[in-house]
């Protein structure tokens, strides 16, 4: 029970915030606003799926924001400049994202380097690659993009599928069990026969795949691409995962909490938008306060359960 407590608290906090918002703005209860909450935060949600898996394995991935931007620029160049079919371009982007992630995972495993620094280098490289491709903003005018955008529910659907698929992967497959084992205690996992190398490579490949998928959704959301897109989005994804009750030391947590973590961040943004008088920086401060609140709560839960065991 204590293990699931942080995620349950996240759901409760979300319900509470939503109720408070709805009391002030009754139209927040409408299906349209709820739908917008899903589709506006779809790319962040998909990023959070990948980040949750990485953090559960005891790692961190700072490169995802740059991969989102790179995916957008790549799609724009393929679709607009070379007339590639968008679906084929999506497939190429997902392939490159996964391969890049696998490379990051391999570097972390073989060089025995801290994930923080390896993914930092990967972030520099992907961001630099964006600028090498183009320094301008490119708008994407392909009709498919107009069809998939906004009210079509495509983005929201992809995000919900990503969460569902990720949850199945974490709970029902051998890979998912390996991720939890690795994050819980890497040495014990190895002694139990978990292949740390293979798990690490797959974990980061999955995160790269999720980042590329998020990049596709982001490019549909903005109908354009630019090399400076999504700067710092990795921090929002990490914040959503932490607020969702996943421990940054790995091994404990899950996707249900991350989903509501993303929704809480989205709710804060919507609230600030609806009031109109609150300045945008309050979103950052509120996120920081929530982060602190959840981290402090996790410490307490750990202390209590440690005392019970001891």
């Amino acid at each position, binding site marked *: 029970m204590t293990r699931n407590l942080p995620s349950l608290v996240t759901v409760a906090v979300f319900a509470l915030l939503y109720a408070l918002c709805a009391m002030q703005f009754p139209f927040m209860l409408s299906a349209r606003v709820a739908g917008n909450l899903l589709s506006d935060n779809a790319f962040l949600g998909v990023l959070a799926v990948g980040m949750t898996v990485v953090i559960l394995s005891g790692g961190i991935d700072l490169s995802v924001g740059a991969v989102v931007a790179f995916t957008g620029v790549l799609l724009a160049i393929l679709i607009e400049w070379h007339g590639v079919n968008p679906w084929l371009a999506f497939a190429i982007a997902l392939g490159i994202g996964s391969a890049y992630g696998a490379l990051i995972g391999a570097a972390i495993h*073989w*060089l025995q380097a801290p994930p923080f620094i390896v993914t*930092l280098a990967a972030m520099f490289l992907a961001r630099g690659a964006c*600028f*090498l491709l183009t320094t301008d903003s490119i708008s994407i005018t392909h009709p498919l993009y107009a069809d998939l955008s906004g009210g079509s529910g495509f983005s929201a659907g992809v995000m919900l599928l990503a969460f569902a698929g990720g949850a199945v992967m974490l709970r029902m497959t051998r890979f998912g069990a390996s991720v939890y084992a690795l994050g819980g205690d890497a040495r014990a996992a190895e002694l139990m026969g978990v292949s740390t190398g293979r798990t690490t490579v797959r974990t980061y490949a999955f995160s790269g795949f999720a980042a590329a998928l998020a990049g596709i959704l982001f490019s549909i959301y903005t109908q354009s691409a630019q090399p400076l897109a999504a700067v710092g989005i990795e921090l929002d994804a*990490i914040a959503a995962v932490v607020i969702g009750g996943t421990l940054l030391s790995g091994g404990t947590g899950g996707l249900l909490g991350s989903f509501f973590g993303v929704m809480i961040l989205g709710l804060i943004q919507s609230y600030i938008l609806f009031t109109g008088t609150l*300045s945008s920086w309050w979103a*950052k401060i509120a996120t*920081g306060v929530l982060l602190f609140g959840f981290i402090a709560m996790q*410490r307490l839960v750990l202390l209590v359960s440690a005392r019970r065991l001891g």
Partner: protein
Amino acid sequence: MRKAAPQLIALGLLLLADWIVFPGFFSLSIAEGRLTGSLIDILNRGAPVALLALGMAPVIATRGIDLSVGAVMAIAGAVAAVSVEAGYPWWLAVAFALGAGLAAGLWNGALVALLEIQPIVATLVLMVAGRGIAQLITEGRIVTFTEPHLAALGSGSVIGVPVPIVIALAMVAGLTLLARRTALGLFIEAVGVNPRASRLAGINTRGLLIAAYAGSGLMAALAGVIVAADIRGADANNAGLWLELDAILAVVLGGASLFGGRLSFAMTLLGALTLQALKTGILLAGFPPEFNLVAMAAVVSVLLVVQAPTIRSRLARGRART
């Protein structure tokens, strides 16, 4: 000295490369009573990151990390600019800014040392919220000021040498004395190598950790004041943006290990200068500044390969055989 050889060679090669792409690189002249030239430029531009890195070095030596320094820079710049604009004397404005940095550092230190939260997570809180706090202080504006004394901290000079360089050098000297004339440096390294053993040996681990993060906040505030003074204004959105990554890179370039236990302020300064020499070289060679990112990725990759335990042990075995 021999330990510094790889770093000195790297810096030397970079300076040589800079000289090849820009023949006037080593020339120094005195214009309007102050030294100018590319070398001075590297030192001057590198000073803020050098200060951040000097604060970061003890934190990394304790096996920690401080992600909040960029945001703390923005807070300190905002506090200094808003204070002088409100009519406070410049020294009081600087004191307020340093006080804000110290408070931020103490907060980080308390989270790490007292609540025993992982450093990455603990400092992430201020990294996310800090920039919002800075914007709250400036009310979202870019606050400009004309106060000459405060501006001199960024663009003035002492007997021809730009003030940021003087401050950075004074800090290196002061911190080195503090760490090596007392046992402080040894204690910090001990905490990084084995926190439990050092606690059992009677070292006040918690106090040291809090002091390390407080120092990092203080140095970040100093860097923030210098950057704000240089442009005579505080830009809460962009001041110090992503500089925490530069600072971490500078410390690692200076030969420190992210797994803690190694502390050298002089080497950290060397790391910061190497990073700046690389950036300046890219500009001088006529590449767009975006190239910086690719070059920095290359530098990190080389560092990772060189520091990798697997490759190190293989090298060591090779040496033992010959």
